[in-house]
């Protein structure tokens, strides 16, 4: 069979059936490719939306301002600092002795368009495809960077909270009894805490950055997988193969890792796209409230907040909403396809 290897690993028939089931869900399958495409593109955001040219040919030599910084004097200017490539004067200097290739969107994350003559926030035009926000920054550029940081943050939070959650669930399910009982009550109380207020309080006494937010959100996010993994472990620890391993003399850790975890991972994996979704939503809502990423960072929540405070500029709110809606819908569709793929009624047949 041509299809029985993936990344050089031989696939078991069960995995093959699962892959086939995943592909059979056309909507989820295409969502995955669209999402991956958008994500990979956004990883190269600096090459798509940047106020620095990609390549400059000046006086017979090539320069790459995107990756390296050059003083203005290189291009015959007077300043020893990096030039503002959007400045008509700089453009003129370069075009006198060569040419410059600008990215598709010639504005970076923080680029303020001083040369626009329109009132801020300005409406969509040929110059700014999705308009500018109230500080004169290009909305499209900010959305691209915002998408990237949302997904990266979501992935990081999902990864860390899954590791914590799966470990906690596994220990609870495997040891059961009093340990499980106490821990379950702790989780119930923890879940009862109004998380947004606590996050706001936390955010007010540390200077929030990417890593701080990750830690703060982790406090509440790790619980999402605990119950699934715990149930899986509770069930499987009494199955004969776990007892057989015990009879072989295997240690607790090795039974949990080798025999029980692979089964629990299936259940956990089905939930991951939804966990990712809620991680992104959590960051967006903090940003919207102004307790999220530091001022000036690209974030979808911040675009939405601008949309709220500038109702006369509907392009802000609408474009922010569309990006969020498309991203979250794609993830939900992928999640549905993953759930189909692992559905035992479909994959055992």
């Amino acid at each position, binding site marked *: 069979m041509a299809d029985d290897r993936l990344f050089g690993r031989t696939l078991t028939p069960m995995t093959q059936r699962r892959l086939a089931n995943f592909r059979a869900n056309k909507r989820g399958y295409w969502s995955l490719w669209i999402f991956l495409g958008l994500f990979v593109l956004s990883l190269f955001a600096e090459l798509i939306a940047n106020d620095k040219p990609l390549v400059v040919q000046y006086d017979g030599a090539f320069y790459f301002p995107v990756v390296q910084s050059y003083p203005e004097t290189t291009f015959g200017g007077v300043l020893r600092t990096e030039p503002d490539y959007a400045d008509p004067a700089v453009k003129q200097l370069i075009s006198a002795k060569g040419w410059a290739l600008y990215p598709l969107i010639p504005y970076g994350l923080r680029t303020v368009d001083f040369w626009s003559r329109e009132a801020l926030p300005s409406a969509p035009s040929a110059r700014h495809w999705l308009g500018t926000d109230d500080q004169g920054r290009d909305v499209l550029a900010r959305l691209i960077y915002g998408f990237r940081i949302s997904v990266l943050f979501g992935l990081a939070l999902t990864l860390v909270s899954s590791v914590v959650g799966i470990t906690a669930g596994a220990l609870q399910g495997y040891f059961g009894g009093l340990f499980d009982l106490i821990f379950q009550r702790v989780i119930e109380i923890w879940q009862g805490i109004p998380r947004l207020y606590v996050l706001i309080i936390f955010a007010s006494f540390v200077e929030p950055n990417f890593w701080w937010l990750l830690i703060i959100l982790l406090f509440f996010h790790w619980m999402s997988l605990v119950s699934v993994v715990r149930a899986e472990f509770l069930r499987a620890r009494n199955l004969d193969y776990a*007892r057989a391993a015990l*009879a072989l003399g*295997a240690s607790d850790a090795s039974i949990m890792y080798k025999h029980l975890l692979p089964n629990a991972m299936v259940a956990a994996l089905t939930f991951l796209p939804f966990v990712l979704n809620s991680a992104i939503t959590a960051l967006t809502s903090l940003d919207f409230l102004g307790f999220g990423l530091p001022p000036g960072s690209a974030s979808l929540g911040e675009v939405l907040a601008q949309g709220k405070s500038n109702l006369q500029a509907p392009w802000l709110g609408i474009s922010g909403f569309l990006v969020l809606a498309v991203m979250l819908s794609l993830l939900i569709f992928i999640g549905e396809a993953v759930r189909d793929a692992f559905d035992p009624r479909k994959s055992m047949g």
Partner: protein
Amino acid sequence: MTQAPLLQVENLAIGFRSSAGDRVVVKGASFEIAPGETLALVGESGSGKSITALSVMQLLQYPPAFHPTGSVLFKGEEMIGAPDEKLRSIRGGEIAMIFQEPMTSLNPLHTIERQVSESLILHRGMNREAARARTLELLEKVGLRDAESRLGAYPHQLSGGQRQRVMIATALANEPSLLIADEPTTALDVTIQAQILALLKDLQAEMGMALLLITHDLGVVRKMSQRLCVMKDGEIVETGDTETVFAAPAHPYTKTLIDSEPRGRKEPAEEEAPVVLEASDVKVWFPIKAGVFRHTVGHVKAVDGISVSVREGETLGVVGESGSGKTTLGMALLRLQPSTGAIRFLDQDIADLKRNAMRPLRREIQIVFQDPFSSLSPRMSVGQIVEEGLMIHGLGEGSAERVQIVESVLEEVGLDPEARHRYPHEFSGGQRQRISIARALVLKPRLIVLDEPTSALDMTVQAQIVELLRGLQRAHGLAYVFISHDLKVVRALADDVLVMRNGQVMEFGPCDRVFDHPETDYTRALMTAAFDLEVAGTDAVSQ
């Protein structure tokens, strides 16, 4: 045959449509049943006997199921393609069916009265009072004790045997002329099985209905049926009078089936062979807690003061009905279940050993479980499963040597060494059980606890596994603790037998003595039920 047949199945084929193409699972089955007659449909799992019975009532899912050829005539009328209203009036009216698993075939949310009276109200248009009176009559007829007080009970409040009685009452409600019984006693204990079979026979004689009995158990066939059909791989390979077929089977498969009844006796172990395991006064009590402070108000005595000893090369059979504590005893002997009492393994006291101290001994004491489907990790290859024990105990120098050991063990249990690259779900039940045995055997243990190792297997496979276990015992001088409810297998394998009931020993002694001259009423009732399928000493057993 002088009478016109009640049911006539002619060249019936059953197929299933799927995206991968059509699959025909029953090919040209033909049989007929006269009024009042019992026909047994015998076969192993996957032979197509159950779906043949279901298609008589047209109870399969159409599509994907379809009948390429054949006809099913009931009282001269064609069932295949009959209109739904007609089928509905026949189902539960003229033809009734009882299933194997009484727990899942009764609705857990309906009272007994509602289950039984439902078809009376549906088919006969009775009102509640009349239906209630008839329900009571039926429940008394099927021998449910205290029938009146049971009317309001829910299925979970009844035992397995009682639930099967309720199922039978439901089936008989409209005095069907044909009763289809699909493995009606497989899920029941032997003493209950004997009661249910006797009940079915009495009711059949009283009501004059025909019985289509589907079973894998040759003892039941012999006891109940006048004629039988043997099915294999979707085909009826032999049809005939029960007595004639048993006396002189014509088809080779029928011969194999009849020969696979466990037979032979174990050669006794050497008298002076060293004692491998000795346990005295083993107790496993589970506390019952009640009240706000969860104080212990009593104990469930799963194992209550049992002493055993096994010598090298010897097999101790532990028999008993479900709930008798035999599996718990096995787990306690393995130190997988906390217990009190002394357990000595090769003159070393292991009852109080800590887990780490116990680990080196785990090598010497192994276990094989009943269910070959849940006892192997589904995500590990056969090679990894068998090798795991070697890794834990640091046996075998390097992976090349371990692979060699694994291969030789797989060969010893009758599997292809190449099987180590495959996953458990690719194997049949019997092969999986061989893998389980290989996993135990690879550590070269002195003692293996076998917890119902043959109960989930087909007859012919069961015979092979019994042979394998015998051979391994001879070759390695293994000691077995063989836990089973199947007295025939125990008789063929064991030196000594321990009969358990409610956690206590009812009888203990050499195999031949206990089987041929049981001393207690309970053992006697158990033996009669298991070997003659007769009810004896009703006081000694429960309903």
